[in-house]
């Protein structure tokens, strides 16, 4: 039964492409009011999962439901879900406005909505140019405008940062947060933790097609989230001072630097100053997603 909840429910989802098991036994829900991040390295099955949710790829096992029903049985899909996917093309000879007018007709959105979404993504000035001449970032914004045409309750985005400049990424981040705050759902994939870290309320992490973590972003990686690397005049003195401050994860790297886990640069810098140790270099290192996956899947973090 179709309910207007804006919820996505994935259960036991699997997809096999010949010999490749792209997705296996995947289960998670996307709740309204939240930005759900969908994380995984390249080839981990993110795109395949999103396309199964959107009825573009048929699952070999399990179900993916949008508001309680398969995508294909939605009466008015464009009014329920808007999607920005990789490999979503445009006819090069059609202008952005004409492209949107085609989609508006299909969705049943009124024509003035075309001008609204063009303004929303900042394409008004270029709306009557052929899309063939657009940059990657402009195409990405046109894809977002298309997704928003039907004023949907759910947004699904596959690596939307690709092709956007830093200002565009920041704008998108704010936009997605605002969209979720208005009580609607966002599912956004990325292969970079940093890209999603500031946006997502919850994350689903997949590795080789299977879920390895889901829940609060803060729960990811625990105390090993970051480490500080420091090059200084007297490593032994600084190490003692740090241990005295209660920092237990202090190691000496082969290149002579100190590695301090669970600390931040301010704390390490202040400690060095207090101990009278000259600091030549200080690097704050976020654990990258690859390390995180290794940790989550039981490997050894590098």
């Amino acid at each position: 039964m179709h309910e207007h909840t804006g919820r996505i429910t994935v259960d036991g989802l699997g997809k096999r492409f010949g010999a490749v098991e792209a997705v296996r036994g995947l289960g998670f829900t996307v709740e309204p009011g939240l930005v759900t991040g969908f994380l995984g390295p390249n080839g981990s099955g993110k795109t395949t999962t999103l396309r199964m949710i959107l009825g573009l790829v048929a699952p070999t096992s399990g179900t993916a439901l949008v508001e309680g029903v398969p995508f294909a049985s939605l009466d008015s899909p464009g009014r329920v879900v808007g999607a920005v996917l990789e490999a979503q093309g445009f006819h090069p000879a059609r202008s952005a406005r004409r492209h949107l007018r085609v989609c508006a007709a299909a969705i049943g959105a009124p024509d003035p909505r075309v001008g609204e979404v063009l303004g929303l993504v900042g394409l008004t000035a270029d709306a009557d140019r052929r899309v063939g001449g657009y940059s990657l970032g402009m195409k990405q914004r046109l894809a977002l405008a298309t997704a928003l045409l039907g004023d949907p309750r759910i947004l699904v985005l596959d690596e939307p940062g690709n092709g956007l400049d830093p200002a565009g990424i920041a704008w998108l981040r704010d936009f997605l947060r605002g969209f979720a705050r208005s009580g609607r759902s966002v599912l956004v994939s990325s292969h970079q933790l940093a890209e999603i870290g500031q946006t997502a309320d919850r994350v689903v992490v997949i590795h080789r097609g299977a879920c390895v973590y889901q829940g609060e972003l803060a729960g990811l990686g625990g105390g090993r989230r970051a480490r500080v690397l420091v090059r200084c005049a007297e490593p032994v003195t600084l190490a003692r001072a740090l241990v005295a401050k209660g920092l237990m994860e202090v190691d000496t790297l082969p290149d002579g630097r100190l590695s301090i886990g669970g600390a931040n640069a301010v704390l390490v810098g202040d400690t060095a100053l207090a101990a009278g140790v000259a600091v030549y270099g200080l690097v704050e290192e976020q654990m990258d997603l690859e390390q995180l996956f290794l940790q989550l899947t039981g490997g050894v973090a590098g």
Partner: protein
Amino acid sequence: MTAVPSAGLAARMVKAELRRTLSVRMWWALLIPVVLLSLSINVFGGVFSSSLSGVGGETPGVLLASLAYSLSLGSVFAAVHGAVQSSGEFRHRTITTTYLTGGRVPVLLARSGVAAAVGALYALGSVAFGLLAGLLGQGSATFPSAGPLLGLIGTGIAVCALWAVLGVAVGTLMTNQAGAVVLLLVYVLAIENVLSLILKSGSGSGLDAGPPAIARITSYLPANAGDVALYDIPAVVLAGPRYGRDAVESLAGVASPPPGWASLVVLALWAGAGIAAAWVVGERRDIT
């Protein structure tokens, strides 16, 4: 947002498909060769005034026959348009957006309907310019009487519309644009002719019982079926009711053709079969 009735869905899909078709040049870019071919074929009465001995250019049947010939060629362009329209979605990877904003089967049906309308337009363009060229160029040619002319126009619209639908089916099934267009052209312009020759090769044995069953199959191949339907009316005007069937045989290159209306049904069955296959394949295909 409550459930939209399916009539509303159909209307939305057709409107979207019309906008999709009209917002790119393809539809009139292919109308140009249709018109040019029709002009050049009809201005001299085509091949018919010379090949049919004893029939002068003043016979209205000649103009009807050359109009039928240009409609037959026009239907090839209608098919190419349908194939380009459907396979272009895969070439430009717009199929994802199209499927996200409308169901797969409604999209296929709306596309077939709009392509059929474009095919009908090609038929009308072909006849209008062909008539003009024929009356101007053939000098002594008389305007065909209304009955046969309207019959031919109706048949031409149906044949071009059905070929457009077949084109949509081929483009949806193959997805490769160049492949779909080449296959259509090679089939209609070469393969079916060769096939017809092979099928008829056994009928030259001089039996009084008429052509063997296998030769009769020629009338039921899709391009031949369209030609039989198109030449049905001109043949009767040219050769009279008694020898009309023989004229259709030689004009369409078939053996023992069924009546024109039956050939239209045959072509409609081909188009229906094509859409059914595209429906089944397109509904299950993974869009990755």
